[in-house]
């Protein structure tokens, strides 16, 4: 069994574009909604692509803006200007 990484975001309109982008870029990702937040689980690895988020938002997006609506994560982080990746090495 592959361990799951996760990212949780506030359930507001700004984060909606990020959530949509994540679900589009990670075919095995599953979004679990609970009041006020959305937790996205994905086996092994999850990627947030700046380009996809910008497209969904209809404006430029700096990946570090994710901090504003981020609630929590599980996984090792690798972040560049274009990608924010969560993964387990096991």
């Amino acid at each position, binding site marked *: 069994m592959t*361990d*799951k*990484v*996760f990212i*949780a975001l*506030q359930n507001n309109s700004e984060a909606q574009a990020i959530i949509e982008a994540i679900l589009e870029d990670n075919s095995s990702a599953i979004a679990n909604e*609970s*009041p*006020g*937040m959305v*937790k996205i689980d994905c086996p092994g690895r999850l990627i947030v692509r700046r380009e996809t988020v910008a497209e969904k938002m209809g404006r*430029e*997006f*700096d990946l*570090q*803006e994710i*901090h*504003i*609506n*981020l*609630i*929590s*994560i*599980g996984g*090792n*982080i*690798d*972040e*560049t*200007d274009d990608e924010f990746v969560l993964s*387990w*090495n*096991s």
Partner: protein
Amino acid sequence: MVKAKRLGLKERYSLMTRGLDWETTYQPMDQVFPYDKYEGIKILDWDKWEDPFRLTMESYWKYQSEKERKLYAILDAFQQNNGQLNISDARYMSAVKLWLQGITPLEYAAHRGFAHAGRAFRGAGARVACQMQSIDELRHAQTQLHAFSHYNKFFNGMHGFAHIRDRAWYLSIPKSFFEDAMSAGPFEFVTSISFAFEYVLTNLLFMPFVSGAAYNGDMATTTFGFSAQSDESRHMTLGLEVVKFMLEQHEDNVPIVQAWLDKWFWRGYRLLGLVGTMMDYMLPKKVMSWKEAWEIYWEGNGIALFHDLNRYGIRLPKYHEVATKEKTRVTHELWATLYQYGNALGLHTWVPEDEELDWMSEKYGELFDTMYRPRLLFMREQENAGKRYFNNRLPMVCQVCQIPVFFTEPDDPQKICVRIVEWADTKHHCCSDGCADIFNREPEKFVQSLIPPQQIYRGEAGGARDIFEYAEWLHLKKDVDTGEYRGSPDHKNWEAWRSEKPTPQTNSDEAA
């Protein structure tokens, strides 16, 4: 806005965080940084330290100020629009009171702890990360106090959080947890708070509980809660980073780190039992049971993290299987204790309503129906007969976690679990094998614990001779701040506000 041509994130971060410090020459480095070696952690190259978020101070201020603007706009709206009337039920306020009394002071303690740890590390990367976290934690304490101050105008028991923090028996549970961490060395402190507490366990507080606050209409807590947790994700990353850094630097560090993980997993788990009762009992509208939260955040996400660390020779923390066995009972055992010692609590307790009991049956199954439901029904019956039960004697508490010794044996939910440890010809009591092991590893430290019931019997609680005088010493008014919810002023006010009056009366007899 992303500008056209500039350095990449990794280069930018490296330029902004490296080469800013120097090797001291007037004084040897070991004297300038006297605390980062005595724990036995061997660091060969501090430059290998990486902050995975690569957040520079410039972006840190930018995003933090954005978070603050959002948060305070919402708090303003909450206060102007009588947001206190939108909560599901005034019983919910017990969770808010426990947060204010028990958790907010921990944020402040974390602020102090990280300032100290940051000063102690000789690596600049670690110092910057600790500095940011220290500022974050101060922000959390402040935003929580601001958010709760509005509730303090309408509900009892919130007037003296700083006074009772150092005096109340149940608040010595969180207080002693943090003081144990703050009196350890800097590496143990960061492992305990950033890794064991924040990475492994605080998701249980900030995710299901805060989501529960949203479900119960508490806009203030939801907003600061998620705003704080967005900082936590940075802290968790620091926690994982510091652990990986220690493990990668030298193999001799592995057993030291493992012992800390064993200790702090258990301490954190014991502390979070209080959060479990907030979820199962204090949220009138339930989102998720403690058992479900444990399964998702520990058995799923927490264990995944330990699988990842396995390549360094780290195994799952000791007694994790005991914690998992206890998931069906810990909150019920703890609530029964809070219920009976309600005369010395700055919050109310009660027997849940029938629908809530049904929800618990559904979530906890047979064990709940055979053991805890009958007890709760008996408590209700006694209350209805005018004999609401309070235990007016002081409990024996665990020498390590300071929770009254009432948990049950891992394999027998009908037998109280007590472990007696000895040091220097004196016996001490622990609630579990986990706490007994922690005591036996550092007996010189834990014999010094200030145990509230012992202090009270010694006359150190203002000379209080019984639990009522003790509550007065805590500045808690009997049956106003303390005691049963049903019939309390909070209950009566709530009914009055919800029935007719469009604008509530401020609780004028309450000191601000």
